[in-house]
């Protein structure tokens, strides 16, 4: 198989994977953790503990708050101190469960041994139930509850499970490290998900700049001998790891506007999610840990780390353990430089989907001075959704919602390629994100009105 890639747009930022050689270290436990109730897409979880309750590692502390929601488990053992709002990464108050750490006592049902369990349970429903009970969510960024994604709606059949090992965001190395250090677990996780989806084929997509990971995964696939799993080499190109782009690259199919991957027979899961699925199903271990990268531009090697962290640890604790916030850092970002969010509040805690603490220098984050658009079309060439950002930007300024919808502002995946490629420093992404929000509002209102009208007609 040749090197695959998606069919339109994309940019080639320097990959800056400085932390690639840093083996995963276990982050020590802080004195207190704050576990967010909104660390997945969908409805926030409902806390089921009260101040004063004692919890062990893996005790359920919150239940799903809706159909699209997930369980949350205690990442530590100790006493619940409070169930109260606390500021999240963006500074908005979110319900958190505060737990004072005492010792490190795990729920006895969790298998903490290192032995690899390769036997796949026969019962699909059983696998799915364990994934749900362990609160597994997608770790590729969107944190969509995995059990929902693995239950295609009736009439839809999954033809291909795509494991996303592209890690196309610069700087991030956590997926790379788990592919090197725990390849077999990932492959077993993939086999489990294949089983749930009814035995479709599985492609593990990895970008060409990680040859070691490709070799490691190939070896694991060969050693374990599950049928229908292959490793595909993808060209290095951002945003290869975007769900729609990855489906295009691997299956040469495109998901229609407003559609879901399953419409074209695809289910995409991150390699990290696959590992979480393995731990949930084979080891009964809930999703309470994940790997994050601490890195930055021009940071000395001793300040770069890949940490196995407990969810709920404050970012300030991570930074402190990693050697403190470097002086050169002008901006701290949670996640990658392209799609990550600037951290305004280091007291915010890590969540299931945390992937990196990234320090960027003044030079790396400086915005270009905005000048006039000369219609060079670089943004349109870079857009992986085939949109015309310059046009959307103009329409947004003219507040022409109808034309924005016609020109597919709602299809924007907010990857930032337009902003990255614009030589005039125009804040395309900022404006298009606003436009997308407004258009989505119109679309939703229209759908709601149509639904109401249909119901009225029924009566």
């Amino acid at each position, binding site marked *: 198989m040749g090197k695959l890639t998606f069919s339109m747009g994309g940019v080639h930022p320097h990959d800056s994977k400085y932390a690639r050689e840093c083996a995963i270290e276990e982050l020590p436990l802080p004195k207190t953790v704050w576990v967010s109730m909104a660390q997945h897409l969908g409805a926030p979880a409902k806390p089921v503990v009260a101040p004063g309750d004692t919890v062990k590692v893996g005790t359920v502390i919150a239940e799903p708050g809706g159909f699209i929601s997930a369980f949350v488990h205690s990442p530590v053992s100790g006493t619940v101190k409070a169930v109260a709002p606390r*500021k999240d*990464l*963006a*500074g*908005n*108050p979110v319900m958190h469960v505060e737990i004072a750490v005492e010792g490190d006592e795990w729920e006895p049902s969790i298998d903490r041994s290192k032995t690899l369990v390769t036997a796949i349970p026969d019962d699909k429903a059983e696998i799915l139930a364990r994934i749900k009970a362990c609160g597994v969510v997608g770790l590729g960024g969107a944190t969509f509850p995995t059990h929902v994604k693995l239950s295609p709606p009736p009439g839809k059949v999954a033809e291909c499970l795509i494991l996303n090992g592209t890690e196309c965001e610069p700087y991030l190395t956590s997926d790379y490290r788990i592919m090197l250090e725990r390849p077999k677990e990932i492959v077993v996780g993939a086999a489990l998900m294949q089983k749930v989806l009814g035995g479709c084929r599985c492609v593990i997509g990895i970008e060409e700049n990680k040859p070691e990971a490709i070799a490691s995964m190939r070896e694991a696939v060969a050693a374990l001998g599950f049928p229908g799993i292959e490793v595909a080499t993808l060209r290095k190109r951002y945003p290869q790891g975007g769900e729609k782009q990855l489906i295009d690259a691997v299956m040469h199919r495109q998901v229609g506007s407003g559609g879901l991957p399953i419409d074209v027979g695809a289910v995409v899961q991150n390699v990290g999610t696959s590992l979480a699925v393995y731990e949930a199903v084979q080891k009964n271990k809930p999703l309470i840990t994940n790997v994050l990268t601490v890195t930055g531009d021009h940071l000395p090697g001793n300040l770069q780390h890949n940490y196995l962290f407990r969810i709920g640890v404050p970012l300030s604790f991570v930074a402190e353990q990693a050697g403190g916030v470097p002086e050169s850092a002008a*901006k701290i970002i949670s996640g990658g430089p392209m799609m990550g*969010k*600037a951290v*305004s*509040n280091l007291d915010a805690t890590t969540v299931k989907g945390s992937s990196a603490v990234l320090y960027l220098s003044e030079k790396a*984050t400086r*915005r270009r001075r905005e000048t006039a658009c000369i219609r060079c079309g670089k943004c349109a060439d870079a857009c992986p959704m085939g949109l015309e950002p310059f046009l959307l930007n103009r329409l947004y300024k003219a507040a022409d919602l109808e034309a924005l919808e016609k020109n597919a502002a709602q299809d924007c995946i907010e990857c930032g390629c337009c902003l990255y490629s614009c030589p005039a420093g125009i*804040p395309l992404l*900022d*404006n298009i*994100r*606003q436009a997308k*929000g407004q258009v989505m509002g119109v679309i939703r209102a229209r759908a709601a009105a149509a639904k109401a009208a249909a119901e009225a007609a029924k009566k």
Partner: protein
Amino acid sequence: MTQTIIWTVAILSVLGLLLALILFWVARKFRVEEDPRIDAVEKALPGANCGGCGFAGCHAFADAAVKASDLDAQYCPVGGDEVMQKVASILGRTVAKKAPQLAVVRCNGSCANRPRINEYDGLRSCRVKAALYSGDTACPYGCLGCGDCVAACKFGALSMDPETGLPVVDEAKCTACGACVKACPKHIIELRAKGPRGMREYVSCVNKDKGPVAKKACAAACIGCGLCAKTCQHGAITVTDNVAYIDPAKCKLCRECEAVCPTGAIHGVNFPKELDKDAVKKRIADRKAKAAEAEKKEAANG
């Protein structure tokens, strides 16, 4: 040579005539009949096309005014009562008077009152900033200071005060069109009754956090203590979600609330005299003492 000239003239004349005929026909065919009153009403309107009335512009407003059976649902905030009376007379209808309003900024989180806890480095737009995070101060409800309201104002009535970082309303220029109210993602700006001689009392804060949290974020925050509501004799003040609100329809401008507010969140403007807080507080205390005495007497009598 002569023939060429004659031919040229002839051909061009015929062509011109033909095109004129086509134009004439098209104009006849596609003429839109419009009620002449629409034009008349539109001429009476200020012509700012600001959209403050909720219509796409003055023409749309006029169109709707002519078609509707009464004018109750429509109001031109820029022209005010004067223009509405004119419109009503053109259409042969009557319209009730409305109190003049203007935009009031309900945030007093100046740089001094509300320290910055991080540095915002993104696009200078409140809407973009609000979509990204809670802002560069600890108050997630307050003014973001990027001036979307200033940009939205078509009358030049708003400006950013560089010292406080807050928008300032020029009362002489504000027409209460409401463009800034719509532009503000934090819903800080409110259209309030202008008040007699411009005098009015209002709570300059929208922070819904509990007292200690709000106070920590901003020295001038409303902490929802309810002192003002207890003091008010006119029932004009309500406290919901830890924020007080003064109903301008009930407020009698006695300024007692302003005097008792512990954080100075209540503002009185355009009063001829400066507020003597101690005198007002004494007045309240005296009244309370009297009331207590009267109650005691009543209890003794009863």
